[in-house]
């Protein structure tokens, strides 16, 4: 079969089983778009901004486990996609980005829409390629998918100069079944001796805790994690990225840990004597002050990326490997072994944890006659029976979503944890809805975040991706306002906008349904009405309490046991809000 470069690219996507390409055309990719025009197998989703293409593809990958695919043109097309690529990179999401480039002979001449895409993206991709010969194109694409989806996943970019896709130059096409790269051999199996040592340490623990991150979800190891946790009877906490990797409604789950984690999760970490870290990377939002991080604990760390081990926190028993087979081996060793966890030690440990749970750190004022953002998330959880895909933007609403929507299944919670990208939520929701047209998809957002990719309301209509936008509108960049309140004596520098659009009219202008909800008693009904409108995108603009803050909070540079808790409801707070 002889094909042109443009046709080869499309054929490679077919052969990879790619369902959707999220993209935006332009000069350098016109040959590729012409090849897309001539087929129906790979569906192209036309976004309204390249950043959204990357976010939609990224969220598609997070929800399905399959790599997301992006197609953008050279120059601004590529630079616009960079934020989305970096978002995927920081959260280790498998993604393949095809970017057009100016024709090979003019590279380096500052040609129209030329930018050094390989150079610009180098620090925020797992790997990237510049294709120099059309004969290499198919193999390069295979390598891109291979690198993106194996080991610690990540985005891989393939930069394709326009002459490579010339329709007049046809070459024999064969998509390689597999590729071997002598420089890339991701480790999959953990070291047996280390696993044995880890199990011994784990079983001897008096105050153990399991700390599980996004690696559990990426590594499809949620079943094994749950089995191991039940087998041991130990408490377990999830990172923001790990939510859903362990059922949140299970009694051994102590909530999320870290900056806005629960009191019980952070206290249990601080007081623990053995930590089993699974697919988590000791991010600064999790550890707080490093020198005071878990002072009594010996740490076991399972991670597929050797560079994640002892990067910020020195660990005692590192295990490099895919989390799933490592957990399987641990389960086997525990089942076959004579030793069992100490019952009495565990009993008193759980009693201590119960005393922290009794603090009820996530309580809030339920009597308020202003809508509390937490209440909206709780109602959303109930209306969707805890079974929706929930995407979010970045800020207070993201934390409320993480705290009050209890994820029992993996891949349901879709958020930008590492890079913290505002504007992620709406295009992400569209990517998820396209993957699962029958599922409920909600985007929990705020009035600041949503405006960063609001143009995607148009994409949602064109491709019939009816999502529900839950806008927690407090007329502030809430998280910025919260920090300014705590650390800058309430000097609210540039953290609110005087000209917030009428979101109801805006939604209607884009062809959707808009609702404004101003009273707590209307919250439930509005959500039920919105989710009953199966085939419509609904923008729910909840006018929420301007003064509400996210608690608990470990302020920057403080340790786990040093949490700021919510003051009792009704206590006067010394602050001024305009």
């Amino acid at each position, binding site marked *: 079969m002889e094909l042109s470069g443009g046709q080869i690219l499309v054929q490679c996507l077919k052969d990879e089983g790619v369902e959707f390409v999220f993209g935006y055309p332009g000069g350098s990719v016109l040959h590729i778009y012409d090849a897309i025009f001539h087929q129906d197998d790979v569906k192209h989703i036309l976004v309204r901004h390249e950043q959204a293409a990357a976010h939609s593809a990224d969220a598609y990958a997070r929800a399905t486990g399959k790599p997301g695919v992006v197609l953008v043109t050279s120059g601004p097309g590529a630079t616009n996609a960079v934020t989305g690529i970096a978002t995927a990179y920081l959260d280790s999401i498998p993604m393949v980005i095809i970017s057009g480039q100016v024709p090979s002979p003019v590279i380096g001449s500052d040609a129209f829409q030329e930018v050094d895409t390989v150079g610009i993206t*180098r620090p925020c991709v797992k*790997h990237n390629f510049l294709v120099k010969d059309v004969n290499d194109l198919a193999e390069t694409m295979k390598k891109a998918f291979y690198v993106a989806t194996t080991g610690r996943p990540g985005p891989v970019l393939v930069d394709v100069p326009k002459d490579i896709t010339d329709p007049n130059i046809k070459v024999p096409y064969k998509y390689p079944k597999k590729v071997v790269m*002598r*420089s890339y051999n991701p480790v999959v199996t953990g070291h047996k001796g280390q696993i044995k040592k880890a199990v011994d340490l784990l079983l001897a623990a008096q105050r153990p805790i399991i700390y599980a991150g996004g690696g559990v979800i990426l590594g499809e190891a949620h079943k094994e994690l749950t089995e191991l946790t039940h087998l041991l009877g130990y408490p377990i906490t999830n990172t923001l990225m790990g939510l859903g990797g362990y059922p949140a409604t299970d009694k051994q789950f102590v909530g999320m840990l870290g900056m806005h984690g629960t009191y019980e999760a952070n206290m249990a970490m601080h007081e623990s004597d053995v930590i089993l870290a699974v697919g988590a990377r000791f991010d600064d939002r999790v550890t707080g002050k490093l020198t005071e991080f878990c002072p009594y604990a010996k740490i076991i760390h399972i991670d597929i990326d050797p*560079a994640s*081990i002892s*990067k910020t926190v*020195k660990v005692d028993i590192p295990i490099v490997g895919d989390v799933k087979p490592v957990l399987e081996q641990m389960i086997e060793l525990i089942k076959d072994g004579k030793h069992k966890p100490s019952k009495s030690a565990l009993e008193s440990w759980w009693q201590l944890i119960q005393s922290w749970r009794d603090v009820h750190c996530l309580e809030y004022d339920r009597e308020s006659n202003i809508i509390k953002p937490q209440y909206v998330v709780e109602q959303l959880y109930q209306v969707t029976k805890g079974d929706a895909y929930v995407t979010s933007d970045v800020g207070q609403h993201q934390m409320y979503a993480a705290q009050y929507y209890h994820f029992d299944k993996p891949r349901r919670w879709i958020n930008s944890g590492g890079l913290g990208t505002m504007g992620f939520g709406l295009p992400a929701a569209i990517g998820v809805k396209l993957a699962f047209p029958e599922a409920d998809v909600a985007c929990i957002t705020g009035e600041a975040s949503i405006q960063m990719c609001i143009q995607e309301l148009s994409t949602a209509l064109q491709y019939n991706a009816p999502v529900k936008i839950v806008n927690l509108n407090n007329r502030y960049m809430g998280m910025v306002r919260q920090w300014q309140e705590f650390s800058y004596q309430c000097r609210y520098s540039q953290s609110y906008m005087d000209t917030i659009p009428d979101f109801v009219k805006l939604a209607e202008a884009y062809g959707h349904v808009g609702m404004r909800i101003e009273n707590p008693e209307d919250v439930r009904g509005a959500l039920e009405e919105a989710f009953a409108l199966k085939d419509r995108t609904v923008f729910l603009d909840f006018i929420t309490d301007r003064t509400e803050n996210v608690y608990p909070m470990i302020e920057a540079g403080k340790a786990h046991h040093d949490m700021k808790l919510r003051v009792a409801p009704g206590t006067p707070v010394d602050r001024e809000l305009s």
Partner: protein
Amino acid sequence: MRHIISILIENEAGALSRVAGLFSARGYNIESLTVAPTEDASLSRMTLVTSGSDEIIEQITKQLNKLIDVVKLIDLAESGHIERELMLVKIKTSHDTREEVKRMVDIFRGKIIDVTPSSYVVEMTGQSSKLDAFIHGFEEGSIIEVVRSGPTGISRGEKGLHL
């Protein structure tokens, strides 16, 4: 502590900038860096001199290994090794000083490879400290130009860094 990291890397466009970019992005030091193709033209050998605590060096080697183009690497400082650096020095000479400069070059086992009535170019290889010592043997102002390759190194014994 000073470390010499020897890297086998795919001889591809951009491979060098991946390494250099890693160091600048993560705030690691590069004291020197040499790179050239090996006997297998598809591979380059890079010798990188850096310094840092054990933790930092561990991260550097892990992060380098993570680069897709890096095939293999070793930290030469971990075992017996030999290192050499090439230096070319242009030295001012006059009728009175020529003999003295020649003697110095002989002591350091260098070679004079270019001569004009007013200058010599000296070629010298050795450990970096020897090259430093040679330069310090001259009065200020007598050296016109110094070019150094940065150290390259190889481990002692039978074992080697290859595919």
